[in-house]
């Protein structure tokens, strides 16, 4: 048995693998004390190899994890579990976005990651949703309803928020602004994909893959050149990848 734990900026994910099958999984908010949260999540299992990934991986390693791997490797392993031939993975988490290229054997061959700001990440969408009065869960669905799209020029979370505020004050419907916010994230993602190169099958993982509008717009943007696919629980992919690494 191997346990993978992904200590992300917003949530902690855990997956348990036995004989190559996922036998359990959990997801909770990171909260103020991610270390205690992780401990709590691990309580119910007996002895097992623990592999940590995500921003808190080194903290976990100091206290309970046997090994650490980066989110990049973890998502690559997780993606291959569900889609054994995939060569391109897009992962958008709370704090960063990544495009990962894999070789034939599934090893990471190159990757792109956003710079230090929150532009184009889950956090960006969360702040914009709050500014427009949507819950994060409804934000994507609301944006999908819009027929007309406005352009958000700024990719900086702070500046984009003031841009959104001025749009609201011009009387632009919130769903249209929401659509614009999604569009700006997709544009940035598409640029990262073009830079790195991509296969015709793109696995979309991370919490933001739950947002229906991002996947839809990215598919529209790439057209026939690629097909966007997602596993059933895209936010668990890192934890699953870590567990797979542990069970090797």
């Amino acid at each position, binding site marked *: 048995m191997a346990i993978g734990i992904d200590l992300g900026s917003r949530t902690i994910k855990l997956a348990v693998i036995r004989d190559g099958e996922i036998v359990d999984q959990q997801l909770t908010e990171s909260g103020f004390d991610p270390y205690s949260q992780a401990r709590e999540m691990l309580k119910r299992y007996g002895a097992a190899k623990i592999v940590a990934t995500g921003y808190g991986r080194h903290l976990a390693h100091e206290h309970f994890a046997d090994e650490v791997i*980066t989110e990049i490797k973890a998502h690559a392993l997780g993606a291959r579990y569900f889609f054994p031939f995939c060569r391109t993975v897009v992962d958008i988490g709370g*704090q960063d976005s990544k495009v990962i290229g894999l070789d034939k054997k599934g090893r*990471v061959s190159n*990757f792109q990651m956003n710079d*230090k700001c929150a532009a184009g990440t889950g956090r960006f969408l969360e702040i914009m949703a709050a500014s427009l009065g949507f819950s994060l869960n409804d934000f994507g669905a609301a944006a999908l309803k819009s027929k007309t799209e406005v352009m958000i020029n700024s990719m900086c979370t702070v500046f984009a928020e003031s841009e959104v505020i001025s749009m609201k004050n011009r009387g632009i419907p919130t769903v249209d602004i929401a659509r614009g916010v999604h569009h700006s994230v997709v544009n940035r993602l598409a640029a990262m994909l073009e830079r790195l190169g991509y296969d015709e099958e793109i696995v979309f993982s991370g919490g933001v893959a739950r947002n229906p509008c991002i996947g839809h717009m990215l598919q529209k943007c790439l057209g026939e050149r690629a097909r966007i696919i997602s596993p059933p629980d895209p936010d668990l992919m890192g934890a699953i990848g870590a567990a797979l690494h542990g069970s090797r």
Partner: protein
Amino acid sequence: MNSKKFEVAAYPKMWEGLGMDVARFDKARQMLGEVYDKLFLSQTERPRKMAYFDAMIAEIFGGRIKEILAVKKSAKPVVGTFCVYIPEEIVVAAGGVCIGLCGGSPGSIPDAEKILPRNICPMVKSAYGFKAGRICPYFQVVDFVYGETTCDAKKKTWELLDRLVPTHVMEIPQMKRARDRALWLEEVKDFKAKVEDICGSEISEDNLAGAIRLINRKRLALQRLTKLRANIPAPISGKDALLIEQIAFYDEPERFAAKVNELCDELAERVEAGRGVAGPESPRIMVSGTPMALPNWKIHNLLESAGAVVVNEESCIGTRYFKDVIDENGGSMAEQLANLTDRYMRIDCSCFTPNDERVEQVLREYRQSKAQGILHYSLQFCHTYNIEEIKIREACEREAIPYLSIETDYSAEDTGQLQTRIEAFLEQIGD
């Protein structure tokens, strides 16, 4: 390990005499000592001969300043520079001191941002801030600063820096045609005249020949160090080697060359015995790109903390400074200046267009250093390195060299992201 905690020595009286902001500077001094202790003295398997370079850091704000003040007393010029294009041989020939000024700390950036725009190169801001805040003793002892035109941020900052310290500018050509070389030769002659003006005497042919030989010795010692790093396992850490390359810009050249050679003797013994600072499984990384000015150890620290060993710096504070030496066979002043100009024209800074020889040089150093991957480092807003990065990346793709490009500044706020990227890069090499 070391019972006494490392400290950078304090000379408050002398600093006051230099017109420094002593209270603030003393805090920076303490911080430097703490960081140095943590990053450098905690390393295992360190060569014994690093003791000299530790002492150079301990006396960075004191002992070395005293030596420079002594030279200054004898009416010799003390010149501050920011670029490997300024021909230090000419200053040395006049009996003077050439100092590469600091610009590698986030601590002085708020001082600069009181005047300069925020969105420019952190190295330029840091350097300007050191003078504006009066928190660098080297800046306080120089007679004048020699700037150059390698980038727009520097070029325009010199105009403002001139208000605080006399700042002259050499025009660096941006292409390498015959007429550009002719321009550069004229600039070298002007520089020589300026230095002679300060000392009130002419530089003789013998003096220049001696200075050329001396600085060649310094560059050759650094070349030797680089060659030793190519051994597996690496006999010295990348952090220590980078530190030596940084100290090369403010130490007395004769002594420095001797000390680097002593260290190299020790490293050669290590190589012979198969000893190194990292196990043979440690990924060997070459760093290429913008200079890392003292005390900028950010990337090397992240790489080596993640288990890699840095084996080469293709950078101005690195091989670009010492890969070429000046032909010593020039007799007349004209011949010597021509040889000097030829050597300086071989510098492959990204400010030139085209600059394809740098791509070749990166690949050559990759092979020579037996590295397993290249990390390209670009400071934020350094357009020339940032754009030239595309050609380096394409060359690495062609040659199937594992490659990671990082753009960052001096702040610690992106440490988490950088750590993830660097660790993923090392995983990629290891898998």
